[in-house]
């Protein structure tokens, strides 16, 4: 392994044949403790020493220095996690209810603020009912696992999030993946499961590429085959559509989408997930969706804060207008530098570097030392030929921060790609 150690990745050590069940595979230890690999991993789990705002402080794993940075990695798209009104609401909730819901929602964990938040989210999404999950990952796993059964078919875009794939695996349904946003491929997969119970699963905004599901075409094809639609709007809720309801609203197809999922940890600035659908289905899920049924209900502080976050984000469009203004500015300037941004149409902007993991890590280190926190995204999270940085544009960015960011990117990535 020593000669090509950098070609290995986390994709290569899933199988474990170590006779000691309490140990990782031997070759994993050899790999992860190699100095070069260690350096790559030093980019992960770096501690933020302040709130995940655009302007924050990091304890750098690269050199052990505390450093003030512009943070374009956190998902705090609308800055709601530190919005004063949201914090105030969270403080009031924690003072009244304490830190924990202290029970599963079905038994004793449901508080009045959970019911209020679920009702308000359902109204916002214009669906009959809503189920709240303590984790976004758990929400996708739980909804898919709760609805689908052995003998059913899940037809998923190949770029769907791990939580959706894991939910599919757990459900026992047969999973077919169609080529990303490719309507011929979708149709081919639907041909294979004619006459079965079929759920088509897509994402509003794809998290590694920032492009949108082709909802009008997807809805038309699904209608033709009688397939249900599940859309994960984790990266699009509160940002897309006239009222911020997401990509389904943006394309005016909300009535054709049976199930809409969202996360509370991105634009909402909290943590958790939600699933909105018709009342009977939500009632059914309460009996069969294990991550809901067997998890403690969301923390009161988070739920109290989220009620306010929803209000702040929807009482007018000022936050998302600012986020879009910033996105437009960043995108224009990055394109002027001739950087490869893939097919992004959203606030998620990939900067695709290519096949070289070494370049990716070198740029990441240099940028961080100049004061820009942009996490490298490496294989297997993205294809090996398209390693990248993923920029999350936030409404919090000031003009000065955007210009500093662009200067650093020019000095490091543009210069590096030309040499």
């Amino acid at each position, binding site marked *: 392994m020593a000669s090509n150690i950098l070609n290995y*990745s986390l994709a*290569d050590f899933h199988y474990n044949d170590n006779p000691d069940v309490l140990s990782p595979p031997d070759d994993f230890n050899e790999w992860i403790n190699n100095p070069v690999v260690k350096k790559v991993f030093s980019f992960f789990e770096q501690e933020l020493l302040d709130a995940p705002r655009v302007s924050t402080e990091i304890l750098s794993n690269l050199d052990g220095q505390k450093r003030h940075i512009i943070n374009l990695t956190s998902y705090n798209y609308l800055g709601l996690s530190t919005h004063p009104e949201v914090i105030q609401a969270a403080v009031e909730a924690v003072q009244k209810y304490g830190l924990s819901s202290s029970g599963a929602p079905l038994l004793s964990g449901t508080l009045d603020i959970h019911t209020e938040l679920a009702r308000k989210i359902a109204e916002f999404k214009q669906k009959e009912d809503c189920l709240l999950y303590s984790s976004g990952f758990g929400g996708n796993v739980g909804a898919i696992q709760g609805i689908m059964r052995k003998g059913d078919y899940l037809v998923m875009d190949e770029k769907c999030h791990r939580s959706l794939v894991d939910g599919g695996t757990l459900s026992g349904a047969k*999973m077919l*993946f169609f080529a990303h946003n490719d309507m011929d491929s979708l149709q081919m997969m639907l041909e294979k499961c004619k006459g079965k119970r079929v759920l088509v699963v897509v994402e509003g905004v794809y998290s590694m590429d920032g492009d949108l599901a082709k909802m009008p075409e997807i809805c038309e094809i699904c209608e033709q085959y009688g397939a249900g639609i599940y859309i994960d709007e984790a990266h699009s809720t509160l940002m897309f559509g006239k009222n911020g309801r997401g990509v389904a609203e943006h394309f005016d197809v909300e009535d054709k989408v049976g199930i809409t999922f969202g996360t509370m940890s991105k634009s909402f600035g909290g943590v958790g997930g939600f699933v909105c659908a018709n009342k009977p289905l939500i009632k059914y899920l309460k009996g069969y969706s294990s991550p809901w049924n067997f998890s403690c209900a969301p923390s009161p502080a988070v739920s109290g804060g989220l009620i306010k976050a929803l209000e702040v984000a929807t009482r007018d469009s000022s936050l998302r207008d600012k986020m879009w203004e910033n996105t437009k500015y960043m995108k224009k300037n990055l394109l002027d530098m001739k950087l490869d941004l893939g097919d992004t149409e959203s606030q998620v902007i990939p900067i695709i570097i290519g096949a070289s993991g070494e370049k990716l890590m070198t740029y990441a280190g240099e940028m961080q030392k100049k004061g820009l926190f942009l996490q490298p995204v490496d294989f297997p999270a993205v294809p*090996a*030929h398209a390693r990248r940085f993923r920029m999350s544009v936030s409404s919090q960015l000031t003009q000065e921060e955007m210009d500093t960011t662009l200067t650093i990117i020019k000095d490091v990535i543009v210069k590096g790609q030309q040499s």
Partner: protein
Amino acid sequence: MTKEKIIEVISKNIIENLDDLENETIDPKKSMKDYGANSLDMIEVVSCSMRELNIKVPRAELADIEDIEQLADKFMEHAEA
């Protein structure tokens, strides 16, 4: 190790891991996708085959492989190394 042996192992694992292939002959010029494999199935077939052949090829080197024969060629390189 011969290429024929490698193709035999890969073919066996395709048949074992995918539905409805019991009586099929696997054509090395085809892709696993042609036999109905999704990306998770492909990972499983590749893992089982590598274990059986006692070789280890980084996944990152498998990205551009288009058919079963190319996979066998890649395995050969590592078997000989």
